[in-house]
């Protein structure tokens, strides 16, 4: 791998582009308008073509104006068709953007003599070529896109910072925003304008589908990691920069492992952003798949432990000798084994030649559980008019979520009975362990 100034500029441009997209993209994700990013990035094509045909130049300003106009038009048309035609939002978006894209394609093909723009550039972008198009700023020679994208990034950042509160309220609760005197409609179309402008600025560099990647994936990743909008915006910027750096690295190294030369950075960048998303999807602390699985596992383990204790207590009650190992609990065998060894390690049960028995501490814990269970049965039968032989299953679930305080209240509400509806003794309340 050889790194040059060229590579540095590629990464800088990609990062600028990613950050600009991610800033507006956060709000698209929050407002469930992700596909609007896709729609607008396709639909601006006729705006670009019109700008070219009218001015016969590739100057940036007409392009941005054309794109902004068509971008807002896309949002407006989608909304009109949804409202007046009563068409599902996705479908109305699909109708609008495919039609506009087709119109743009025809304009480009028909005006091909006048227009120096091909559809390839719009679809794929040309990050590598963009670096070669240089300009001079303060005596420094820098690639043109750095200037363009830097400006767009600044505009987006200014928008997000200045209207942070307004954007937040209208993103989470448009009705509240309206009652507070914030015009949610104006915020919506301002956002759409910025989406269009950002899409156009990023086109040349990464192509229109990958614009969607940079708009949505960082925002979605951040959404999985945090609950706060402020940190979501910051995290999304981090993800955008990371995918730019890793994307370019992947583009120049990964194909080499299979004996190929390098590949297109923009594509690798989107794929890398997707990979980051998948990793976060797995390991995110609260939303992640793994943490949710672990959480569920811990919960079932706790229930198995408590059921074990309860059943041991019931066996003692029936004056049987220490029961068969282990007392029946409806759970996978490995989980029961794990529960038994955890209980033994904590000194709640003791194992003697193949039998398990409650220790004194274990007996206290189990009696509290049984007390909860039988108080619930009493409560359900007395106060909820559940038939006594139907109370067991419900009580079986409730016993695991009943803490001491709740049990005390339950005891008061049921007038502290000594027998449950089945005539079994309710163990007394133990003083809290110190």
């Amino acid at each position, binding site marked *: 791998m050889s790194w040059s100034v060229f590579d540095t500029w590629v990464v800088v441009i990609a990062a600028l582009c990613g950050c600009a997209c991610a800033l507006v993209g956060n709000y698209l994700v929050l407002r*469930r308008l992700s596909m609007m990013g896709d729609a607008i990035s396709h639909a601006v094509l006729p705006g670009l073509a019109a700008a070219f045909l009218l001015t016969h130049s590739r100057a940036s300003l007409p392009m941005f104006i054309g794109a902004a106009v068509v971008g807002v038009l896309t949002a407006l048309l989608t909304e009109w068709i949804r409202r007046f035609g009563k068409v599902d939002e996705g479908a109305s978006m699909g109708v609008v953007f495919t039609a506009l894209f087709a119109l743009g394609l025809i304009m480009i093909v028909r005006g091909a003599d006048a227009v120096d723009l091909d559809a390839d550039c719009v679809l794929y972008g040309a990050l590598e070529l963009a670096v070669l198009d240089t300009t001079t700023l303060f005596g420094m020679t820098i690639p043109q896109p750095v200037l363009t994208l830097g400006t767009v990034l600044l505009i987006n950042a200014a928008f997000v910072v200045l209207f942070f509160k307004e954007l937040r309220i209208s993103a989470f609760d448009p009705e509240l925003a309206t009652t507070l005197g914030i015009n949610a409609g104006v915020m919506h179309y301002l956002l759409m304008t910025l989406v269009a402008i950002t899409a156009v600025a990023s086109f040349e560099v990464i192509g229109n*589908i990958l614009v969607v990647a940079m708009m949505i994936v960082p925002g979605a990743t951040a*959404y999985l990691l945090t609950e706060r909008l402020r940190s979501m915006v910051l995290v999304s910027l981090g993800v955008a920069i990371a995918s730019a750096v890793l994307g370019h690295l992947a583009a120049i190294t990964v194909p080499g492992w299979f004996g190929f030369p390098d590949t297109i950075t923009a*594509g690798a960048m989107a794929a890398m952003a997707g990979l980051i998303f998948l990793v976060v999807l797995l390991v995110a602390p609260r939303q992640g798949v793994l943490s949710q699985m672990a959480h569920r596992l811990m919960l079932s383990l706790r229930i198995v432990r408590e059921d074990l204790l309860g059943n041991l207590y019931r066996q003692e009650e029936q004056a049987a000798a220490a029961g068969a190992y282990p007392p029946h609990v409806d759970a996978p065998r490995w989980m029961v084994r794990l529960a038994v060894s955890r209980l033994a390690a904590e000194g709640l049960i003791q194992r003697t030649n193949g039998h398990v028995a409650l220790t004194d501490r274990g007996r206290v814990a189990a009696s509290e559980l049984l007390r909860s269970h039988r108080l619930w049965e009493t409560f359900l039968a007395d106060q909820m008019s559940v038939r006594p032989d139907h109370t067991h299953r419900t009580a079986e679930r409730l016993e695991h979520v009943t803490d001491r305080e709740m049990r005390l209240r339950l005891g008061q509400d049921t007038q502290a009975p000594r027998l449950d509806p089945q005539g079994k003794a309710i163990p007394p309340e133990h003083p809290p362990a110190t």
Partner: protein
Amino acid sequence: MKRLCTILIAVVVLSSGIAWAQGSTTVDATAAPDSAFWRVLTLRDYNTRVVVLGVTMLGIAAGTIGGFMLLRKRALLGDALAHATLPGIAIAFMVMVAAGGTGKWLPGLLMGAVISGLAGVGMILLIQGLTRLKEDTALGIVLSMFFGLGVALMGIVQRMSAGSAAGLETFIYGKTAAMLASDAKLIACTAVVVSVICLLLFKELRLLSFDPAFARAQGWPTLGLDLLMMAMVTGVTVVGLQAVGLILIIALLIIPAAAARFWTHRLRTMLLLSAVLGGVSGWIGASISALVPRMPAGAIIVLVAAAGFVVSMFAGPARGVLARWIRLQQLNRLVARQHLLRAAYELIETGHAPTGPSGRPRIRIADLMAMRSWSRWSLMRLIHRLDRQELITLLPGEVIELTDAGMIEARRVVRDHRLWELYLITHAEVAPSHVDRGADMIEHVLGNEMVAKLERLLEQERQEQIPQTPHVIR
């Protein structure tokens, strides 16, 4: 049995179309004018015939399955799916080159596309199921991530030394004008398979589209049906992709179905219309592109379909804008008429209408004006209209009389109004001074059955009797 017959007919029609497309290219010498326009329109040229028929078949297939997708609220899934096929195509190409082939074997490429498309759909469902991210975000993530991966892989493919990658980009842009007979045949087969499955499982798919929860409760294998639907969409998308390109296939899946929805409330008719609209757009679009130089077929087909959508949106009789507007106007007119008649009746009842020389009570327009907050202009317009309908007679001196028909109608309206007021007072426990507004809104929509029920409920003894007003008439 009926179902079987329909299927047979569909198969026969579609396959005869294929047979004809493949038929000899001999030009009938007795044919009419030999202008380019005529030649295209009658499908005289072999190339045009293949393209037009292929695209028409694709329109039919996409329109049919698109209808179900629209109702399932998954219109944009086709978008994500189409983009998600790209990495599969590139990987299939690389694998086939590695295996020693040229990498351009079509079934292999299509297989790759199907696999990665289905993987994309699976991932969308997974992201939605596992996280709090919503459907739109899941679609966007999968769409862009897969496409990005595809672009990166295509970049590798294009720089590969072995095998020529030329032609792979047709999967993105399509090559409508250069469609081969084999492509058209493949599309036609897909169209036949999709139509047959949709006909065979019409009832099941209908239930799934309208009420998946109920379908599940009824014990239908909704997951299997959903997967079948996805598989059909994937099939149509993949086959259409290499023939007409990404954007066109997305458009054909969405636009005809959305347009057909404006015309009917019946699913059967809607699917038929959607298929026809898709087919016709394909046919007209392909013909235009054959006639006009430098006119990309895919784009023009989308525009034709979009034009069909715009027309449908305004003119569609079931949900079209115009039809809904007309229905609203009719309702408004009915309401205005009933308001006027009731106001007139109440004026007569309270003795504000002296009897004229004709023996009928005469109502002054000035009194009517005070009954309701209507502008003089709209009231006069209303009076003129009712005069034409012979419910009232407009007399000189700014007075009106109710005709016999007008009197009957007025009594009915007042009766409905007061029955509802009584109902509100006795059964809904609304204060008598507050019932007027509520009854004012409901009186126009009380049907005969409803009135009969109210009568039973309020134990009105005589049918003709008009109850006394429970509040002061303003």
